[in-house]
Structure formats: C-alpha cells, structure tokens
C-alpha cells in the first residue's frame, strides 16, 4: 500500500461517525423531487378507492343506495358494511383494546366517518360516483363536550357495547365511559394536601389538534390471487405491526404478506394506527384481483385519521410556604372520540401520563384518568411525543408557574428549588418511573445565563410599569419551561402493541470489500435514519458512513421491529445497531488475531481496525478483515461477517431540557410576537448535531403552532370546523420564529452508546414554554391560567375581559 500516511484525526474524520455534522444522505433525492412515496407507485391495472363519508356526527343510517354509482361507467365496486360482514371485517380491533367500525354498521358516530368505499378506474370517476350514492340518515343527539359525556341522560354513543360493564382496561362507570386508570398513593397524597401550607388547583386543558404530516395517510394494496400473496405499500410508521395486524384480520399467513413503507412525508404519530382505508383497499384488491390505491385528501386527514390530545387535566400541587412541593394530584378527563383507537404502546390506557411529576422531586403523587366517548373523530395519537407525555409536561409546567405566582416566587427559582438533584439519579418517581440520568440544575443555569434571564425580568418589570402609565400597548411575557421526557418504548415489562413486545432490531452485513448493508425494524419518516444509523455503525466498526447503506421499511428484508414514533428509534433501534455491530466486532477481532498471528487479547481497537498492543505498526483494518472473513477465515470459524440484534431495552430513556420564550403581546390586536426562543436540550450522546438541530427546529415549529392556534374544533352539532390549511394553523417560514439551540450532554447509563432520543423533546417542551409566556405576560394583571390555543382573538378576549381596551 502506498497510501499517504494520514493522522488519526483524519482517519476518524473520514468515517463521519458519531458526533459528525454529516449531511443527510436522503436529502439528495428529497431536494430533487426524486423521493418515492406511496402515491408515486403505479401498478398495472391499478384501481382507485375513495370514501363516502358521513355528513352527520351522530345518526342512524336508514338506507344506502349505490345503484346510480354502480351504473356509472368506470365504477368497479361499492363496498359497505354489508359487504364486509361475511368476511368479519366490518369492525376491526383498535390498538387500544376497543373495536372500531371499518365502515359504518348502521350508525355513524362522528362526522366524516367512513360509510362506503367506492372503487373505480380513476380518482375522478370515484369522486363522481360518491356524488351519486344516496345515504338516508336519521339524526341522533350529539355529544361534543367530554364534560357532558357521562351525564346521566347523555345519549348512548356505543350501542355495540350495551351491557358491557367492563372494558379492555377495567370497569366502565357509564355507557359512555371507556376506562378509569389510577396510579400513585392516594391516601398519602390526600394527607399531603390536608397538611399543606399552600395549594393550587386549576383545570388545565390541552385542546384537540392533529399531527398533520404533509403527506396524508395512503396505501396501495395488491393481492396476487395465484400466489395468494398480498403486497401492501403504505405510509406506515410501524410496517411490521401493520403486517401482523393485516395477517390476523385477513387470515393471510404472515409470510405471504409483504408490507413496504417507501419514503414517508412525515408521520408525527398520524401513521402508527390502522385505518379503514387500509382494510378497504385490501378487501377491494382481493375482490377485484387488481391493485387498489387509497389516498386521503387534506380534509379527510385532518378530520378522520387520528387527532391528538383533547385532555382536560384538573391539577393540584401542595407546597410549603417557601416553595418546596409536597404533593401532586391530577385528574384527567380524556376525550377519545367515537372509538378508543389511540395508538398507545404502553400497557396502560393513559400511556406515560404518569411522567406528570416532571423534573421535580415530589414525595407523593396521585393520578386518575377517565376516558370517555364523544361524537368526534376517534384516536388519539401521540403527536410527536411518547403517548401522553406532551400532555403531562404541559400540565406540570403550567402548574409550577401557577404555584410560583401564588407564592410570589420567580418561576425559574421555584423550579431550581424542586429539581431532582444530580446525585438522586437513578431516581424513583412517586408515580413509578426510574429516571436514568440528569443534571437539571446545570442545564437550567446554563439556559438562564445564556438568555440573560435576570435582565429580561428587569426589562419586563419596567415594561409593566410603562404599560400601567399608558406609554405602551405591549406587554412582555417570559415563558420558562423545564421538561423531562420519557421515551424509547420500551421495555417489555412496560410496553406492547397488541401483545407484541416493543423491542427493536438491526441486521448488519459487511460485504467482502468492506462496505455494508444494514437493515432495521425502525422506519424513518424524515428523521434521517439513513444518515444517522450509518454514523453509529461507522464509529462502531470503523467503516466510513458513505460505505454503509441503510434500508428500512420492507418487512421481507428488514428484521422485525416496532417502528418509529415516541422518540424510540435511537433508544431502541439505535441500541440494537450498536449491539449488532459489537457482535461483528468480536468476530472481526478473532479474524484479526488470526491474520496478525497474535492472541485476541493482544489486540486493541483503533478507529478503523485492530492493532497489536505495544506495536501500533501491526494493524488490520476492518476492510482487510472483511475480505479475510469471507476468503480466509481462521480454521473452524464460519465464513462471513454479519450479525443481528433484537434489543429489549432495560429502561426508558429520559431526555430533558430548559426552554425559554420571550414574547411581546399587542393588547389591541392580541397578536403575540416571539422575540426570542432559546432551547437547551440534553438528549445524552449526540449522534449528528446538525440533525438534532433540525429536529429541534421542526418540533419547536409544531409546538409554536399548537400553542398559538393549531386546533381541530367542532361546533355543537359535531361539525368539524376548519379542517383545511386555510384555518388549521401550519406555520410557514414567515410566521416561524428564530430558534436558538443549545445543549448539555448527560449520557444514558443503560444505553449502549448513551443516546436518549431527541425528536420529540421540542414539541413536549415547546408548548408549555409558549403558553407560559402568554400567561406570564398577563399574570401581573391578575390572571392565573389562560387556556390554549393562544391565537390572536383569544388573547385579545383576555385583554378585553381585563378591561385593557378602555
């Protein structure tokens, strides 16, 4: 080899491994419009499906007449519940233990519910046919407000559950009740409140919103009658789970179902669940013998497939006069809509809501959650968070501010006073979690110094006085948030989906020339796995990331995994990748020892190969080892160099962060201008700082949208309001504030590379930061809690109620 001698730093840089701001390899195709999404896939003879949907939120269906539609040239079939009944597919199990009508079975329970599936030669004919299908309704009384769902005289929303006093999660108290879930020491918590010097109590609501990925839900089902095999392309965040569900429902053996998730244009939780469109497309393909494509439009996406939140949290904190918290009591009323089809990977119906003690050392706590049915779209999903973690973080972070206000304490100081201390980790929370690692005081102090917190408070005080003197019509708010996430679902003791434990997997194969193909059970929807997974392998195995191909989403080739959501990919699949790589490394060490004619124990790893201890000239690079692994392995050793790992994590991971929002509100219009937003994240080991920054930017933008106006609203009749991007707030670059990002690094002690996951932190921490800023701006005028969303007219209403408009 006459290669120039290069330094260790250069060898390391060449790998583009962990810690490198490696450019996203997937962007080469995405930025040139060369991504391959479901709707880009066109198969010969492909038909198109579309739904007839309910006009009403609650009605009996007296009659469906499809005769005119069937007479339209180009219409191939119209499927209703009657056609699905003989197959037993008119209802389907949900991921939450409930059942959901695939097509309305005599009754509709939310507006835009699927009634009939039209299959036609093209989308235009399908939609023409929809206009020709007559549905006769008998309207029924509607429940929209979850607080009315359990009224004694509330209409029965789920006649199919009549007489069932026990649901999937225990006893039901009322015909519209789904479950009650409690956790924590109730009597000790009640005692803490009975003896408290100070208490606060507030109903903190998190409104209904929607993940709204730019690519809507869609699939293409193709059943091969000769082979008896089903190929299903779809926008699936969890392709293997979809395969298992499809097999269980259709009775097609799992090995004869090929689920392929191609490029996905965002998921944010929307694409975890199983939807009527998937079932109907599969049935239609089986019936017609032709491929059938179903693509949601924007209004269908926003109004039917999986909302998020609609959580109403009555929150109490007990504390001492000097601001030490002594107890937390939370009751949640959870609106799940018409069917409990929430995509919850935990074993409990309120997911990880019991992270509600947040970053604080609560000696006791109690949480009770009641789930109810209403005539709204079913769900929900975890919109860029672990299930119910965003709700929990919003609840505790708003409540801590309310307590600070009552005590006359600075909200940052109150948090500092109550943080779990560094030496308390691993920390057992009052509601049952073991926090893995953290240094909250360090992170908070760094954030306060970076933003100039004390100076901002002084400026705010001066502005408040100027406002009172009539010199300005602006008020200033400083939103303080310190959140702790719980991600990486999850340990099999805590988590499963339909009984499937929530491990994840990686399979790595080194080719003879030292390049790599690796496949995972995770599935990127934009997170950049093709980039970051290669970086983990590059560091672990000393092969440049550019020589590593990452493949996800094809259930025939990828090892079984539970997919990507809840920031689980890095904590679970990322760990599997490191563990699989280490298996390969062990074998590589044996081969290197053979080639170098030394004992394995005489070798040490050095960036991209093994060298003989004390004799650094004697080296075998991983590339050389790969060739030898196939062509001259040590005697008795199986040729080849590959490994598989299935990783069942020992614990969840607990990323955290300190976020500050500085906002100026025009009281005459209610318009809030974000002056600064500073986000410090600690996600443990950082794999690609640039991708982390991108994730934080995206999550903060969603948080900004949610807090400041993004809402799925209903009128009293259950008509969904504003289910289009005209009304549903999706910020453009113009509205989006400038983001300042920062970090500390506290590795997870139980994760092979110490990484915790970051994708969802900014949504979890961002929402309370914005909301706390609005509340902080008005607090000096006497408000204690202002409900989200904080769009201009609602903020103006607050100012009006306070008499600020003269």
């Amino acid at each position, binding site marked *: 080899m006459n290669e120039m001698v290069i330094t260790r730093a250069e060898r390391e840089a060449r790998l583009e491994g962990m810690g490198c701001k490696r450019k996203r390899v997937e962007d080469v195709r995405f930025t040139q419009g060369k991504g391959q999404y479901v709707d880009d896939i066109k198969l010969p003879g492909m038909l198109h499906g579309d739904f007839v949907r309910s006009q009403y939120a609650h009605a009996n269906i007296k009659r469906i007449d499809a005769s005119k539609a069937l007479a339209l040239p180009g219409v191939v079939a119209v499927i209703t519940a009657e056609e699905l009944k003989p197959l037993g597919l008119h209802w389907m199990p949900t991921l939450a233990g409930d059942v959901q009508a695939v097509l309305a079975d005599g009754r509709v329970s939310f507006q835009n519910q699927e009634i009939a599936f039209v299959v036609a030669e093209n989308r235009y004919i399908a939609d*023409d046919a929809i206009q020709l299908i007559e549905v006769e309704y008998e309207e029924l009384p509607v429940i929209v407000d979850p607080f009315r769902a359990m009224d004694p005289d509330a209409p029965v929303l789920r006649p199919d559950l009549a007489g069932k006093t026990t649901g999937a999660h225990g006893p039901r108290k009322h015909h519209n009740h789904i479950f009650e879930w409690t956790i924590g020491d109730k009597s000790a918590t009640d005692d803490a409140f009975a003896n408290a010097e100070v208490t606060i109590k507030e109903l903190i609501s998190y409104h209904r919103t929607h993940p709204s990925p730019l690519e809507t839900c869609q699939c293409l089902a193709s059943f091969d009658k000769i082979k008896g095999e089903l190929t299903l392309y779809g926008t699936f965040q969890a392709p293997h789970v979809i395969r298992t569900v499809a097999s269980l429902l259709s009775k097609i053996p799992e090995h004869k179902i090929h689920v392929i998730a191609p490029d996905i244009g965002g998921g944010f939780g929307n694409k975890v669940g199983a939807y009527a469109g998937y079932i109907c497309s599969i049935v239609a393909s089986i019936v017609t013998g032709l491929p059938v494509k179903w693509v949601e439009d924007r209004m269908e996406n926003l109004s039917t497939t999986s909302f998020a939140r609609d959580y109403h949290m009555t929150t109490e904190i007990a504390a001492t006069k000097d601001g030490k918290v002594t107890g937390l009591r939370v009751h949640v009323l959870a609106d799940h809509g018409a069917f409990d089809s929430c995509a919850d990977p935990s074993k409990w119906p309120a997911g990880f809501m019991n992270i509600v003690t947040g970053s604080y050392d609560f000696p006791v706590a109690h949480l009770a959650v009641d789930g109810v049915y209403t005539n709204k779209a079913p769900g929900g999903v975890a919109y860029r968070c672990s299930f119910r973690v965003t709700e929990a973080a919003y609840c505790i972070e708003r409540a801590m501010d309310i307590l600070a206000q009552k005590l006359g304490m600075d909200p940052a100081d109150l948090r500092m006073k109550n943080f779990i201390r560094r030496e308390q980790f691993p920390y057992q929370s009052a509601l049952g979690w073991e926090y893995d690692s953290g240094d909250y005081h360090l992170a908070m102090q760094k954030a306060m110094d970076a933003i100039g917190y004390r100076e901002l408070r002084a400026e705010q005080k001066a502005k408040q006085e100027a406002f009172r003197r009539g010199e300005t019509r602006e008020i200033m708010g400083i939103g303080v948030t310190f959140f702790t996430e719980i991600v990486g679902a999850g340990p099999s003791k805590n988590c499963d989906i339909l009984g499937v434990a929530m491990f994840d997997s990686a399979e790595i194969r080194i080719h003879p020339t030292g390049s790599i193909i690796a496949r995972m059970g995770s599935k990127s929807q934009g997170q950049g796995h093709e980039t970051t997974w290669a970086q983990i392998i590059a560091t672990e195995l000393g092969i440049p990331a550019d020589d590593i191909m990452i493949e996800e989403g094809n259930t025939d080739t990828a090892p079984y995994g539970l997919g990507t959501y809840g920031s689980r990919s890095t904590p679970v699949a990322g760990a599997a990748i490191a563990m699989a790589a280490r298996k390969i490394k062990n074998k590589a060490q044996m081969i290197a020892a053979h080639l170098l004619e030394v004992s394995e124990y005489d070798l040490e790893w050095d960036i991209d190969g093994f060298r003989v201890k004390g004799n650094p000239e004697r080296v075998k690079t991983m590339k050389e080892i790969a060739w030898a692994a196939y062509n001259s392995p040590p005697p008795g050793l199986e040729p080849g160099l590959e490994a598989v790992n299935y990783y069942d994590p020992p614990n969840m991971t607990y990323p955290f962060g300190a976020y500050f929002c500085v906002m100026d509100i025009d009281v005459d*219009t209610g318009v809030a201008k974000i002056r600064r937003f500073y986000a410090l994240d600690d996600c443990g080991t950082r794999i690609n700082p640039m991708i982390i920054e991108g994730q934080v930017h995206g999550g903060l933008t969603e948080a900004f949208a949610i807090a400041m106006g993004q809402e799925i609203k209903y009128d009293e009749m259950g008509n969904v309001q504003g289910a289009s*991007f*005209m009304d549903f707030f999706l910020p*453009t670059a113009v509205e989006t504030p400038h983001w300042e990002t920062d970090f500390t690094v506290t590795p997870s002690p139980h994760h092979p590379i110490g990484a915790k996951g970051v994708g969802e932190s900014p949504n979890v921490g961002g929402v309370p930061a914005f909301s706390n800023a609005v509340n902080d701006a008005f607090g000096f005028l006497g408000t204690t809690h202002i409900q989200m969303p904080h769009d*201009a007219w609602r903020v103006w209403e607050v100012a009006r109620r306070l008499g600020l408009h003269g």
Partner: protein
Amino acid sequence: MIPGPFVYHRPASVGEAVGLLAAHGEDARPFAGGHSLIPMMKLRMAAPSHLVDLAGISDLATIRDEGSTVVIGATVTQAALIRSDLLAARLPILRETALQIADPQIRTKGTLGGNVANGDPGNDMPALMQCLGATYVLAGPDGSREVAARDFYEAAYFTLLQPGEILTAVRIPVPPAGHGYAYEKLKRKIGDYATAAAAVVLTLDGSTVASAAIALTNVASTPLFAEEASRLVVGTSLDAATVKAAAEAAKAITDPATDGRGTAEYRREMAGVMVARALVKAADRARTGA
C-alpha cells in the same frame, strides 16, 4: 378534492371569450388565475361544465398609463403589479396590498381581474379599488360598459357582472403626487384572508387632511367604502380623537361573521384598529413623503 368533468376553452380574444360565455350560459365560467374557482370546483361547491380561460388573451395582461388614469388589464397578475415601476411610483398602495395577498406562488398566478370580479369578501383588491375610486370595464355581447367599484358588489359572490360578461380592465384615477396611503391587514398567517383590513388614501394641505378615502376588507359580505369615516377626517389634523372617531364610524358599518379568525365582535374591533393604524401611517407617509 377532485373536480367534476368540464370542458376547457382557451379563447384568444375578448370577443371570442364573450361568445363562448354567451353560447354556454350559466354552465360556463371565465377564469384567470384560478385560485378562487378551482378550489371551489375541487370541493364540488362549483361545477361549471365549461371553463373559459382568459390567459390566452394577451390584450388583458397590460398596464397602461393614461395620464390621470392607470388602466390595468384583468389578467395582470399580483406578481406583475408588484414588479411594476409605474405602479410603484404612482399607485404604491397597489404594491403594498398585493404583497399582502396569499404567498409568492399564488401571486404569480392570481390576477387583479379575478380578485375584484369574483365577489369574494375575503379578497383584498375590491376594498382597495373602492378606496381609490376605481371603475371596472365589463365586456359583454352588447359591447362594453363601466361600473364604479363602489357600486359593483351586492353580496358575497354577487356582483353587477352579468352572465356572459367579462371584467376586462380596471381604471384607477391616480391620486396626486405626495398622497399618503396604507393598507393595514391583520391576518393569522401568510396565505390567509384578512381578519380585518383597511385601505386608506389621503392628501394633506399643510397639517390638515385635504381629502381621504377609507375602505374595509372582509368585515361584511362585501367590501365596504367607509364614507362617513372618510368624511370625518377631512379638515382635521388627524388628532387622536379624530382617528378614534373615524375608527368608530368605520366599525359601525361592519357586519363580520364569526369564524376561525375570531368572533364577530373581535373582527369588528379589528376593523377599527386597522383603520386607525392605516390613517396614522398614511398621514405619516404624506408628511414625510415616504
């Protein structure tokens, strides 16, 4: 979001277009940028069986300086309004308003004619045309006629445009050099219609308002020319009390709907806030020559 079937026509002259509309009657609709009509068709709230595309009529895409009047063809896009040096110099409020319509992509397709002819109360240009005292040139089977923008709008989507007629141009009298102007629009985000918006054009004689015109967007089923509010400010120095009185007078003629942008009460109040802010900004510009 899939439209029903229709026949697409692309005439090369106004005469040909009028002929097509006459031949197909109620089943035909003219369109230019398509950003109002096509979404309605995709929602199947509109289902014309004949679409007459005006984009092929090159005479309609010009901006002409006639001295005291500027004549803008119906298919001049918002982007072209923004680019025009003539308008920047003589009618800068047009540029200011066009820049607040939708987003750059839509402004490349959306036209002045479509914006004023459609009768959508959310559109920005109708109120501006009322403020400027513009007239619309309408071509029909019996020739051409002119209608004042202040008389044109009857209700949401109902105007004096008759079936078979096409709005071919907008004639705008040019305000005197040194006039003050402002288009103040409150909206939730880029691409949104106004929660409330106000157009103001005024001239000053020393520190006294010599003339003023105020009009409002999206706070009633039609654009509103705020005649009383305009009259109130003339002869004053635009002191705080006058600005408040004008805002109150403008609010009094509004009749907004409650929608996702806010309650009717909020939107009415915002009409007042926009009028007050536009007046102050316009006067400031007149004073400083900005």
